[in-house]
Structure formats: C-alpha cells, structure tokens
C-alpha cells in the first residue's frame, strides 16, 4: 500500500491482538498496540517480497464458516475411525490433486485449511505448484473427493487471492 502501512490488515490484526491479550483499552495499551501495528509490518516487509491481495470479504467469511463446519464433521469421522480401528481399519490413501491456483498466499491458506481439518494432511506440493499430494485418513471415492476439495476450498481461495 504505502510506506507507513505496508500491510494495513496485518497492522489492524496486531493492534486488536494486543488489546485482546491485555484485555484493556487504556491509553497506554492503545499506544503500545498502535506501535506494534505500525512497526511490525514495516520491520517484516523486507522478508515478504510479495504482497497478499485479499478481496471479497464475504467469500472469506463464508469460507471460514465452511471450514469451521468441516472441522466439526471430520472430527466426528476421524474419532469414529479411531474407535473402530480394530474391527474396520480406515482406508487411508495418498491423493494427487491437480491445482489451478498458483498464488503463494492462497496455497499457504490452503495448506493451513487441509492441516487444520482432521482427516487430511498436506504432504507435498510440486515445484511448479501444479499438483498437491494429500494424505487422506478415510477415503471413499477418490474422484468425488478431488471434486469436493477443489469446489469447497480451492475455488473460494482463488476468488479471494487471485
């Protein structure tokens, strides 16, 4: 953006984080939070050559809600898989997922989502970012899983970051 606020969203997030951590809006904490919000992005700017462009706040909100819901559902599925592991071992498998997204920040968000949702672990990304190797805890139908994965996570992330 500009030199004082290279990452405005990050500045706001750090400011809110500081106030929340201290549970206070006293002048001292407001000042310290503002200092953190201004200085940290400036000091970190040289480490991040690419700037993330986040668009479509509505899509962001919907994606977060969707991930929250998926986390709960897959928690129950993995818990059931663990409890029944003796009689019915989970059908774990590696899945190759062709990716259309190339944006580094979008991919970082995707890796976060897959790892936070139990039942999928991000295992490897091709150097040209065209294929993702994902380990799935209990895989029923590979083609359906890939379609579902691309539709629920990759497409919204492309709308947000690309």
């Amino acid at each position: 953006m500009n030199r004082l606020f290279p990452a405005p969203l990050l500045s706001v997030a750090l400011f809110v984080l500081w106030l929340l951590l201290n549970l206070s809006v006293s002048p001292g904490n407001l000042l310290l939070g503002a200092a953190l919000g201004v200085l940290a992005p400036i000091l970190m700017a040289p480490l991040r050559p690419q700037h993330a462009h986040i668009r479509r706040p509505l899509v962001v909100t919907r994606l977060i809600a969707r991930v929250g819901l998926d986390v709960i559902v897959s928690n129950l599925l993995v818990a059931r898989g663990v409890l029944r592991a003796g009689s019915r071992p989970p059908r774990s498998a590696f899945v190759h997922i062709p990716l259309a997204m190339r944006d580094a920040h979008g991919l970082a968000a995707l890796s976060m989502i897959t790892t936070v949702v139990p039942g999928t672990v991000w295992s490897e990304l091709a150097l040209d970012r065209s294929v993702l190797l994902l380990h799935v805890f209990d895989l029923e139908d590979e083609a359906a899983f890939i379609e579902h994965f691309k539709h629920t996570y990759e497409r919204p992330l492309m709308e947000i970051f690309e």
Partner: protein
Amino acid sequence: MNGAVQLPFWLEFSVAALLLIGSLFALIGALGLVRLKDYFQRMHPPALASTIGAWCVALASILYFSALKQSPVLHAWLIPILLSITVPVTTLLLARAALFRKRTSGEAVPDEVSSGNDRGN
C-alpha cells in the same frame, strides 16, 4: 469455585459439558496414536485435540469468566486462532520428513510429485 457471583445452573452445566466434550476428543486423539498402525494415519488424530478439543475448552473458559466478571472476556479465543496458524507448520514438517525417510528406505509411498528435471525439496 467459590466465586462472589453465583452462576446460573444452565451456565455451569454448559461449561462442564464443553470441558467434558473437549477432553473426550483430546482423549480419542491420544487413543488414535496408540491404536493406529501406520505413521501417516497417526498424523490425523492429534488434530482432534488442536481443533474441537481446544475450541471447547476455550469456549468454556470464555463463558465462565465472562459470566464471573459480568463482561466479555474473549482473549481465550486467541488460542484456537494461533493454534490453527502454528500447528500446520509442525504437521507439514513431520509429513515431509516422513515422506523423505520412507522414500529413502524404499517403502511404498508415492514418488515425488515434481516431474521433469526439477529436483524436489
């Protein structure tokens, strides 16, 4: 707890239920580490503790202390947010290391997904 404020029953009940559910999922996650045989399968259950487990405990803490202090005490929710940022780092590292080791020792795992002359990292 002998707080100055007497909390309503439904609130105490909700807090206790949330704590029990969170602990239950953390326990199942730990159980998975013992029961599952394959390394990559064992990467999944700990996510139960870092998601639902942490969410329920954080929510219980927010409910209890907000009621006790008669004002919203939201900072416990930072724990799930920061967990969801940091946990993937270690999980990814473990998955990459395990893939590398298993490939080196010739076990049945998929080949590197980078094709052509590129060398995987």
